């Protein structure tokens, strides 16, 4: 679904990404680990297509189409969705309006989603205005759920979230990525759900906590703007926990 080939990116006169390769097949969730400043967010922003992120080589293929030079909104309309780590507040633009904007193409009744994320009281407020860390993540997740992208890019969905909210966020992400099993009394076959889901995900995590809630298929470690390592996400996380990112640095030399 998403193929990134030899991607190098410059941001404000500095080259941040150096020849990144990445492949996310449909229905898979991949996790990107890496220390601060390694280029994780730059990769997500470049996939989304923001103007400051200048692609100097390589390409981004999404659902078979080269989107490297597509404007942001066309990528969104093509099925890319991004959960921002630190979204801006927009004065006078209500959360409800954001949901309406997200719902333009999906045209669904999103009220149950609002309730599920316990966000009814925020709809009339300016988006992100005075939201706590957890509320921002819930707001982002809710917007993505309404937008229902085919590839969700989640930038540190668990950062700044308290323990109470992290389970809620975890459930929301599983719902977004169709990793929530059908209810037990449901006749739906779980294997069928798994095999038929199309939505993919790319999750940036600094701490790895999100893996307690979301089953990821593949993990990467990003170091100094390149993918230093890839494999089973839990194994990678265990390794980072035991020996830290320093080991990855050593590995690269």
């Amino acid at each position: 679904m998403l193929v990134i080939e030899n991607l190098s990116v410059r941001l404000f006169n500095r080259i941040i990404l150096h020849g990144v390769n990445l492949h996310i097949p449909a229905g898979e969730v991949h996790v990107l680990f890496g220390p601060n400043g390694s280029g994780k967010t730059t990769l997500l922003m470049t996939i989304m297509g923001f103007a400051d992120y200048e692609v100097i080589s390589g390409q981004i293929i999404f659902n078979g189409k080269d989107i490297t030079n597509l404007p942001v909104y066309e990528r969104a309309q093509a099925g890319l969705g991004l959960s921002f780590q630190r979204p801006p507040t927009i004065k006078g633009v209500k959360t409800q309006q954001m949901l309406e904007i997200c719902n333009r193409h999906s045209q669904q009744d999103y009220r149950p989603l609002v309730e599920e994320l316990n966000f009814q009281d925020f709809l009339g407020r300016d988006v992100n205005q005075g939201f706590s860390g957890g509320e921002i993540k819930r707001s982002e997740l809710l917007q993505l759920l309404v937008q229902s992208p085919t590839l969700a890019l989640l930038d540190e969905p668990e950062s700044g979230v308290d323990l109470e909210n992290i389970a809620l966020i975890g459930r929301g992400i599983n719902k977004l990525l169709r990793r929530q099993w059908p209810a037990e009394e449901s006749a739906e076959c779980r294997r069928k759900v798994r095999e038929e889901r199309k939505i993919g995900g790319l999750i940036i995590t600094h701490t790895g906590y999100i893996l307690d809630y979301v089953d990821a298929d593949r993990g990467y470690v990003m170091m100094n703007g390149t993918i230093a390592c890839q494999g089973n996400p839990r194994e990678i996380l265990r390794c980072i926990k035991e020996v830290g990112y320093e080991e990855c640095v050593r590995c690269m030399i």
Partner: protein
Amino acid sequence: MHDLEMKKRAQAALDKPAQYGPDVDLSRFTLIAPQESYQEDLSQLPAELSRQVLSAGIETGEKGRSGTYFQKNHSVIHCQIHQEGVEILTIDQALAKYDWLKDYYWKMIPPDQDKYTAWAYLNPHHGYFIRTRPGVKTLFPVQACLYMEQDNLVQNIHNIIIAEEESELDIITGCAARPRMRQGLHVGVSEFYIKKGARLTFTMIHNWAEEMDVRPRSAASVGPSGIFISNYVSMKPIHSLQMYPTTWLEGKDSLARYYNILVASRGSELDVGSRVILKAEGGRAEVVSRAISAGGNIRARGCLVGKEKDIKAHLECRGLILERGGMIQAIPELEGYLPGIDLSHEAAVGKIAQEEINYLMARGLPESEAIAAIVRGFLTVDIAGLPTELQAELNRVVEESEKTLL
């Protein structure tokens, strides 16, 4: 002051420029306009005129209005109230009817303040008197329309608004001119009296023409526990506008709120301030302005003066520059005279943040629509205490104007 003395002072002030704003040469204008006929039914007015005043919040069908004052050039063409306990008269009728009104007339604004007030004093062209009797609440807003269509005309208006004790009065004043009207000058003197426990919300929407100069002169006095909410919208092209209304919070626990929404397109010069003088204990005030330059100049002033203990007031000015060639200057002033007062301000002038555009584009909005949504949000002020129908009217007017802006 004796009338003769006032007249002398006004005459002496005929060349006195205003403290702020570009000077207008009064000799360019004519003081003479033909008499227009009275309109029993406003819905019979020409469609173009109706459309033009509707953009200023005036319903010629009078739907959802408690009464209407309608002045065209120098003629009052309609003046009718539909609710008992609410009065609407021309200022001349009111002065003839109530002897006591002279204690309210030209009391807060001196005729010799500047050449505009002097001219308005010496050459009055009507204006309205609106009053709610004690304890009466307007069921719907009262509307007042000041319309100009004669080229080179000056319209000198004097209004007096009185909300008697414990009454609630909502007013929409819509000012408009014939589209593409050649030069014209509107001078509007307004004196507001909000008595003990009363609440006045005054919403003024300007929809003037590109070559017009406008000089409103207004002042308000608020009694104990009284509330004065003033909303002002000017989003259409205008040659020059200068005003600096002042509210005196005279009574204990009184409250004033000013909300100004200003848009200056190329060639427009706007100098708009709001001043609140907190003279009594427990006074509260809030002054909020939103200024957008689409090529024109805006000076957004604000002044809070704290003269009594336990007062609290805040000034907020935000400016957004959409294109080159224009300028926004925010000039907030705070004056405190006592320990224990709380006056604050915040001001910001800038362009639309790319980050906000990115955020909306990532949700699927094309850039132009993202900018429109941000501008609309910028102009959205949730006004505490504003009746819902007035807020809806305000939103409608702002939205309509914002469409032509972008």
